[in-house]
């Protein structure tokens, strides 16, 4: 079942001509974007009971669709396990992978893939324990049993953390997040570790979410961002600038509600962003209202954040380092000019 993707990659390597350049043409020709997402991570990519996907990562797909087609819904979603995701992308099964994927050097250089360099969520790995354990710091966890899922950076991070602090632990690694939650909920492990955003999302699935504590330590840097295939610079640029457009829109105060009015703004930055001045879309191989479509149909970065993961959602994730640079965060959009 899970191996199908691996074999898919193997088969693709056998037969497919290495004609992966030109994803934009391929996407335009078939009329939709095939987008690799998680198998259900609330707030990031999660299907509702009618099968409609939503979340911060899904908004990446929607923004691309809005930029390319002028319609945010020309997207088909492929749910992927952590293990399958890279082979699915390199084999051409999907066009882009915005699946809460940590940018690391190995992934960026050795898998035939490339991170366009935009990070749609700055995360870090955290640890959650039942409050009844009375543990207040990760440094007290010597000898603990830890549940996590395979095929992610979390296995390496937790091993590094415990080794560098000279602590022993037992790692129980499941293939899918649902089983990790079930096993942790049953008491198989003392600790559940994954990215902190993931902990916030997954704890909602526990029998009693309030009976668990997320420890203060952040044991790794997890910059999560979309991935594309190596060697397709045009497509990578579209993915990069779609995100930058959403950040700049927030900084300039352009929202989905006022985007139409803002086209007549006197601010040249806004005019360039919304395509009423200059021809920036052409450089991407798109129409000049590409960013206008993204902002009016999907929203700016702040809107997307508040809608899916912000303090008013069940995840209750404060903006933190994901605030705009002007508010002391790390989200910084290169200028459009």
């Amino acid at each position, binding site marked *: 079942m*899970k*191996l199908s993707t*691996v*074999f898919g*990659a*193997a088969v*693709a*390597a*056998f*037969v*497919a001509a*290495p004609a*992966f350049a030109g994803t934009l043409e391929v996407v335009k020709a078939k009329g939709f974007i095939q987008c690799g997402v998680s198998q259900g991570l609330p707030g990031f990519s999660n299907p509702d009971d009618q099968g409609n996907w939503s979340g911060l990562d899904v908004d990446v797909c929607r923004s691309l669709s809005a930029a390319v087609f002028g319609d945010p819904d020309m997207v088909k979603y492929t749910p992927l396990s*952590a*293990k399958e995701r*890279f*082979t699915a992308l*390199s084999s051409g099964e999907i066009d882009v992978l915005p699946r809460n994927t940590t940018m690391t050097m*190995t*992934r960026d250089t*050795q*898998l*035939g893939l490339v991170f366009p360099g935009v990070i749609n969520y700055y995360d870090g790995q955290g640890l959650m324990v039942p409050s*009844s*354990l*009375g*543990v207040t710091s990760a440094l*007290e*966890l010597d*000898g*603990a*049993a830890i*549940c996590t899922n*395979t*095929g*992610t950076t979390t*296995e*390496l991070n*937790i*091993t590094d953390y*415990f*080794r560098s602090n000279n602590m*022993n*632990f*037992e*790692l*129980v*690694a*499941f*293939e899918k997040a649902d*089983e990790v939650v*079930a*096993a942790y909920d*049953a*008491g*198989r492990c*003392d600790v559940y570790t994954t990215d902190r955003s993931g902990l916030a999302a997954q704890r909602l699935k526990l029998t009693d979410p309030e009976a668990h504590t997320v420890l203060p330590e952040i044991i790794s840097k997890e910059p999560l961002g979309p991935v594309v*295939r*190596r*060697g397709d610079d045009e497509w990578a640029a579209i993915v990069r600038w779609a995100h930058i457009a959403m950040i700049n829109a927030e900084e300039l105060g352009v929202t989905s509600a006022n985007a139409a009015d803002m086209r007549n703004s006197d601010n040249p930055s806004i005019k360039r962003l919304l395509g009423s001045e200059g021809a920036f879309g052409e450089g991407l191989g798109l129409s000049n209202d590409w960013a206008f479509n993204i902002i009016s149909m999907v929203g700016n970065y702040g809107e997307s954040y508040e809608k899916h993961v912000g303090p008013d959602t069940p995840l209750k994730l404060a903006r933190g380092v994901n605030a705009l640079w002007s508010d002391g965060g790390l989200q910084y959009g290169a200028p459009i000019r």
Partner: protein
Amino acid sequence: MAQSDIADQTSGSGSSAEKGSILYDPKVRGLFFQIVLLAALIAWVLWVRRNTLDNLEAQGQAMGFDFLAGTSGFQILTTLGTWVFDYQVGSSTYWDVFLIGIVNTFAVAFLGIIVATVLGFVMGVFRLSSNFILRGFATVYVEIFRNIPLLLWLFILYFAVLRNLPDKRDKVAIWGESVGLNITGLYAPFPITYEGFWMSAVAVLVAVVLWIILGAVMKKRQEVTGQQFPTFWVGLGMLVAIPTIVFYSTGAPLEWEYPVFTEEGPVLRRGYQAGIGMVIVPEMIAVWAALTLYTAAFIAEIVRAGILAVPHGQSEAAGALGLRPQPTLNLVVIPQALRVIIPPLTSQYLNLTKNSSLAVAIAYPELVSVFAGTALNQVGRALEMVFMMMMVYLFFSIATALFMNWFNSRMRLVER
């Protein structure tokens, strides 16, 4: 000539075959087409290899088996494999991870095959029992287990087991202080051997060899003189006595390390202490149980079919010759039933071995989970690693098949 005779028979036409034209010689033709096929196959393999390498290079993917020497930076759940290879994060390599996966796969397949065979035979015989309760029980068992997919059984058994076991700070004592069970596993004493223990191990081997020799000698004697000899009891006596004497005369070089259960201190520290005694993790138990119960249902049906395949006249004939029911079963019915049972049984063994790869779903670190899962994600050499894995399963399956074929030829009907 013999060749032209065949040519005449097969082609049916006359003139050119009689002249012995090499074009119409069936042997030459056969050879020609075989060479063509072989050449085509080799060319195809080379083409696929070339094309794969080209495409991987075009995709910018690294390739080769050099990654196996790299250190693996992740922890693996304590299992037979990590113990056998003394897995240490920081010094163990991906090659060790590969071997650990193989050992864990082998362990669960081997244990599964043994227990599934025993359980399958019992259930198969029960299905033919005249006792309504036994027959009904076996029927329900077979129908339930073979009609629900194995993956579901894995989840059901694993999570049902987990939910029902006492938590980590608690335990069920199975045998006083030495054997106990909780959600983190089954704990038992661990044998620590000292110098000289190998002599006891050798003594066991010697006793087994003596038993086999004794059996052969006494069988010969029975064939010649008709005198019977209680080989089983004498052999068993030797198997117990010889190692025991050696063990104590070498100074009993064995000590049991008992698991330690703590009920005081910080909450996290309570429960069984890690690294002391022996532990079998619940993941392993669940995989083993699921594979065993599922496969045993199929084996039961095979056994039932095998026994039913022996005509009733055979038992009647044995009775007419004066054999009592037990020897009739052992000497007449079972040997003939085995002929029917063994070939499909082999397939079930192969299925069980391959199905063990489903264990990835519930965190048992077998080959697919630990090598094609965690390690593959770290190094990303999908082609190489999947190839290695396929070779392992192929090797396991061929070894099982060869053994069963050998066993089958031993069991086949010898006609005089």
